[in-house]
């Protein structure tokens, strides 16, 4: 059953009911190595509520058919379900139009689409693209590939020791060769929340469009793409309590209109002749081939689930968890948190004395605690901090304060064994 506690007015904000939320996530109720599972790897992927699991099952049991193709009833049902999900996404990020919501595999594919298609439209030899030190490899490699292909250059906004970007350096990187800024909203490796609104304004003052990688932001705070005014915003459904294999590219309609198709195939065309073809309307021009229909429907259910709880509750609770865990972790002797930006998402990266993160990960796993140990697909950032790896704990609203206490016990056990 879903936990639906209506998100009422500010004056009547109830606390998040974690116990009943946990009951919605069947996976959480299991033992690992004899201990109740503690899942602290939410930045990698989140677990799914019953409603998401059920709706995918229902889809395949009752309405599965291809979309936009048949004259039969099921095809109509499937198309409606798919397009309803698009409307949920549009509303969720407050996009202006359904034409601006493209269903793709995930953030990675969305960034590659922009690099390829917007790259073809606007970026040429000797142009510059600005990214930051905080990027996930998914927001580095597509730009590198593009630069290598056409002879453009990649510029990188440096990061201070506390994990915040150097905004002055950012401004001075922008010049008349800058064609795009591709920036993460929240760092997956160390949790920094970038001041994207301000950074988008800065870019727009010089007429430069901005892509925001929202993979780690959408699960934690309300996103309004019109307020941000970015040209592109991308995220993956699986980090948002939805299924894997579905994600979103939001882009301003005017740009999508100008941009050439990314992939060719069915669905994205209107008239095909061997001499020439015309393309379908937005957003279908960018959705070649049969899409992940069940995945889109599942993402819609995940958005319903989150919306019912409400970001006012989610953000507040997760920030309390973050504060509590930060304080507790700092009390562990020899532990150092990497990244102490003023504004952080519930993601904490740390090292413990000179004990290797993989050894820590193995020992914690034996206490039923799932954490990430490694470079978090952010090797340049790790290098910047002189590290090859950290341990990362990342929270979701189904995590609890007592789970944090068990993490601390686990780390004390690590110190007893290896310290």
């Amino acid at each position, binding site marked *: 059953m879903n936990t639906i506690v209506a998100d009422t007015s500010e004056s009547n904000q109830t606390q998040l009911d974690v116990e009943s939320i946990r009951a919605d996530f069947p996976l959480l109720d299991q033992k690992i190595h004899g201990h109740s599972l503690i899942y602290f790897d939410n930045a990698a992927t989140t677990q799914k509520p019953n409603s998401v699991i059920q709706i995918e099952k229902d889809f395949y049991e009752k309405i599965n058919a291809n979309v936009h193709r048949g004259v039969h009833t099921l095809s109509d049902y499937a198309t409606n379900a798919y397009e309803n999900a698009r409307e949920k996404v549009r509303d969720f990020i407050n996009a202006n139009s359904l034409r601006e919501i493209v269903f793709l595999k995930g953030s990675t594919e969305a960034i590659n689409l922009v690099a390829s298609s917007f790259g073809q439209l606007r970026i040429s030899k000797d142009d510059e693209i600005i990214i930051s030190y905080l990027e996930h490899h998914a927001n580095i490699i597509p730009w590198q590939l593009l630069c290598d292909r056409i002879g453009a250059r990649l510029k990188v906004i440096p990061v201070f020791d506390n994990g915040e970007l150097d905004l002055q350096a950012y401004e001075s990187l922008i010049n008349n060769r800058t064609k795009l800024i591709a920036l993460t909203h929240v760092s997956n490796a160390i949790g920094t929340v970038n001041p994207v609104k301000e950074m988008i304004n800065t870019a727009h003052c010089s007429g430069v469009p901005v892509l925001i990688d929202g993979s780690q932001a959408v699960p934690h705070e309300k996103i309004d793409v019109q307020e941000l005014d970015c040209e592109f915003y991308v995220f993956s459904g699986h980090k948002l309590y939805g299924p894997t294999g579905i994600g979103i590219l939001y882009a301003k309609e005017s740009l999508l209109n100008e941009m050439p198709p990314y992939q060719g195939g069915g669905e994205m065309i209107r008239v095909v002749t061997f001499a020439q073809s015309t393309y379908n309307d937005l957003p279908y021009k960018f959705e070649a081939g049969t899409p992940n229909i069940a995945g889109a429907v599942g993402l819609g259910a995940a958005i319903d689930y989150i919306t019912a709880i409400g970001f006012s509750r989610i953000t507040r609770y997760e920030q309390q968890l973050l504060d509590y865990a930060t304080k507790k972790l700092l009390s562990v002797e020899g532990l150092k948190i990497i990244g102490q930006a003023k504004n952080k998402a519930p993601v904490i990266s740390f090292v413990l004395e000179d004990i*290797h993160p*993989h050894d820590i990960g*193995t020992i914690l796993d034996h206490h039923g605690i799932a954490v990430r140990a490694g470079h978090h697909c952010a090797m340049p950032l790790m290098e910047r901090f002189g590290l090859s790896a950290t341990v990362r704990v990342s929270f979701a609203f189904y995590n609890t304060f007592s789970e944090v206490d068990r993490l601390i016990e686990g780390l004390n056990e690590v110190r007893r*064994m*290896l310290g």
Partner: protein
Amino acid sequence: MSALRELYQQVIIDHGRHPRNHGIVENATHSHHGYNPLCGDKLNLTINIQDEIIQDVKFIGSGCAISIASASLMTEILRGKKIDHVHELFQQVHQLLTGHCENPEQLGKLSVLSGVAEFPARVKCATLSWHTLNAALAQSDSPVSTE
């Protein structure tokens, strides 16, 4: 809990913290860089071989306790070994690390690594040094990786 103790035996913790033969063989005849992209573990192995016998072998590297201990134990056991013998040793170690070794005792001190078999995600940590050794002996030019 006991599987963990098996994995992190005192010998492993000791070798992980105070690796033996840590350094570079000056007059190396064979060498190789090993890298495990999953963990970021790095290993530089240098060997001096005369008359088909390993005279000296050292490593420098960074990595988890398991990978460093495994490299350290490997260098200890290799000294004075005929290179003919290395291939067989590699097979035995591989069997040990994947839980297919009939009698671990024959491997002497290396048998402390038997606990790794219970941790599939960590087998690569323990085999990095051995893969690097193989590549050094084959004198291949590209860096080995456990991927």
